[in-house]
């Protein structure tokens, strides 16, 4: 019993779900739902269909090369069951999963940082151009001028004294 990967969207195919297509050259294709199968039949390239994981990885929107992704790999060597090995593996799986999630999130964060930079600049330009919608140009100026005058008077008084 294993969870397969959908050929088109790379989503999980649980046992009892989805369909499998076998081609004449004996290559099998699994699909998680009829949407993926229909797209496949229309000969669409998953690397160009925007909503698939294949596209996201191919266009660099998600973490592709990382050593925490190397852990999940289909090995064609059968290993005999050993209790401690299995329990250790499950523990390791948990940790790796946590790290993988963090790293994927970090990758996306880094990718979107540029956007933040652009946003920052935009905000600054927005403030520079249209501050008059909120504050009048010499909003605090009268007060400032008054204070200046007060200061001057005080200075004069000081000087007088």
């Amino acid at each position, binding site marked *: 019993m294993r*969870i397969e990967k959908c050929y088109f969207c790379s989503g999980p195919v649980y046992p009892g779900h989805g369909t499998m297509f076998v081609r004449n050259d004996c290559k099998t294709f699994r699909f998680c739902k009829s949407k993926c199968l229909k797209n496949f039949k229309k000969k669409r390239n998953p690397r160009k269909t925007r909503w698939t994981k294949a596209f996201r990885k191919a266009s660099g929107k998600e973490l592709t090369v990382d050593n925490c992704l190397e*852990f*999940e790999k289909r*090995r064609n060597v059968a290993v005999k069951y050993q209790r401690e090995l299995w329990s250790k*593996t499950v523990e390791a799986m948990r940790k790796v999963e946590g790290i993988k999630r963090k790293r994927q999130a970090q990758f996306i*964060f880094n990718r979107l940082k540029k956007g933040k930079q652009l946003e920052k600049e935009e905000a600054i330009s927005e403030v520079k151009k249209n501050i008059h*919608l909120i*504050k*009048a140009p010499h909003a*605090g100026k009268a007060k400032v001028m008054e204070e200046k005058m007060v200061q001057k008077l005080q200075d004069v008084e000081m000087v007088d004294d």
Partner: protein
Amino acid sequence: MALYNFKKIMVVPTSKEFIDITLSKTQRKTPTVVHKHYQIHRIRHFYMRKVKFTQQNYHDRLSQILTDFPKLDDIHPFYADLMNVLYDKDHYKLALGQINIAKNLIDNVSKDYVRLMKYGDSLYRCKQLKRAALGRMCTIMKRQKQSLEYLEQVRQHLSRLPTIDPNTRTLLLCGYPNVGKSSFINKVTRADVEVQPYAFTTKSLFVGHMDYKYLRWQVVDTPGILDHPLEERNTIEMQAITALAHLRSAVLYVMDVSEQCGQTLEQQLELFNNIRPLFANKPLLIVANKCDVKKISELTEEDQKIFADLTAEGISVIETSTLTEEGVMTVKTEACDKLLAHRVDGKMKGKKVHDVLNRLHLAVPAKRDEKARPPFIPEGARIGRKTMEVDVPKRKTERDLEVEMGDDYILDLQKYWDLMNQDEKYDVIPEIWEGHNIADYIDPDIMKEELKVKDEEMQEIRQLAKQIREKRKLKIVCSKDKDVHGPRLPRTVKKVERKTLEKEMGDLGLDMTGKDDSHYAVNARRSRSVGVAKKRKREASVIPTSRTRSQSASRPPRDQSGVRDPKMAKQAKKLMKNQQKDMNRQGKKGEADRHVFDLKPKHLFSGKRKSGTNDHR
């Protein structure tokens, strides 16, 4: 026919059938219509054809019978003798001879009558000649009734004979009736011969096949032989004798040690000695059967001496029991080995061998040293060999377990698993965790990660930008809501209230206190005062013209510009109002308003169309 294909002989019809078939065939396959007024040669030809056709049919059929039945001289002497025993050679030959004679007679009859028909001068005469010819042929056939019946029976029996190949390796079982020959053949081959307690259960020869040393062997079971001279033997025994005489096989003489067959050992020995001449040039084996009842060692001294004598002569005596299967395999292997050796010897003494031998050369590597190097047989092959040779009970199978335990049985395949720790065999093995296959993970690797610190300074700028965006959106929404239709008037048309101005500027952060001396405030006061003064002076006589008080007095209002006197002003106003009436009635906003409030009013489009049009009903 040199082949032993007695199954392909055509069916021999009875004489009546024969006649019927031929005559009806003649009627069907030859033309049937002839008239008196036809030309004579045509009539003659017509009838001659019929006669010839009938003759031809009989001839063909009878020839086929003659060729199908085997000639006793052409087939193997074993079969010839067997057929003699079963069907009597003389009778057989006689029957076939009769058929031959009949064939010739029919040919002659046809020849004669065809000759006669050449001189027939009328239809009637030719017809009579034809009738005579056909009649004579049919009478000849009627006379063959006995022969035909006999031949049919022979054919049926022949086709049911067992196919014994006289040239291949054969084991022949012989002995008194009821000694256990048929049981033996049942055990050794897949044959299913009837085994019963009465004598002469087996009434004819039976063949079984078995495999040994990758070769096919025939085992022939014979009916029992009794001890009397050859002339007094009946058909059944003669079959056994024939087999013994002609088949080049290994002979297994079966004896009943326990004397259950009804004959003593002496009598059995007597028979053995009598038929000994038949065993010349044949490997011989004595099978002491029914040893589960009585063993040779339990016999009396005299009887044991018999067997000792036989062994001394060089004939192997083997004890068997077809009931417990003890010794059956030994007999088989011994007999086969002996026969093989005999056959090989025979071939070696023949002429053809030298041709083959001259071309063969066995190369043996020269010995290097005295070290013995036996052939290496792996353990598995050794075990396999052992199981092949002797029937040893194999290990206990799951099926045996199931039968033993009955209802309690559970198929438990995990007990055969070969793991590092045997006590982990019955563990429940996890396969999937949180959408991942456990089988895809092996070595974990743990690593740490750092978190990013947020930037504080930008927060303020972001907030301001947010406010700006909100305010902008609000303004857009307000302007959309204004619903301005018609020409856009410049800002100077509207009067701006002092209060709103001060409020707006205050919101933007300017200090609006103490602005009484500002330009806009002064203007506002001036316009107000002027308007009020005007009103005080001419309150009764002057008609209030418009609201445009904020404008300077030099610019006349629109509805007063170009109007000479109040009468004209009144008229102008009236005209305006008249034009507006229509539009007001229809609810139009202006001249260019083409909007239809209800494109499909229900009362125009529903109901029965009585009087009226689509525009009104």
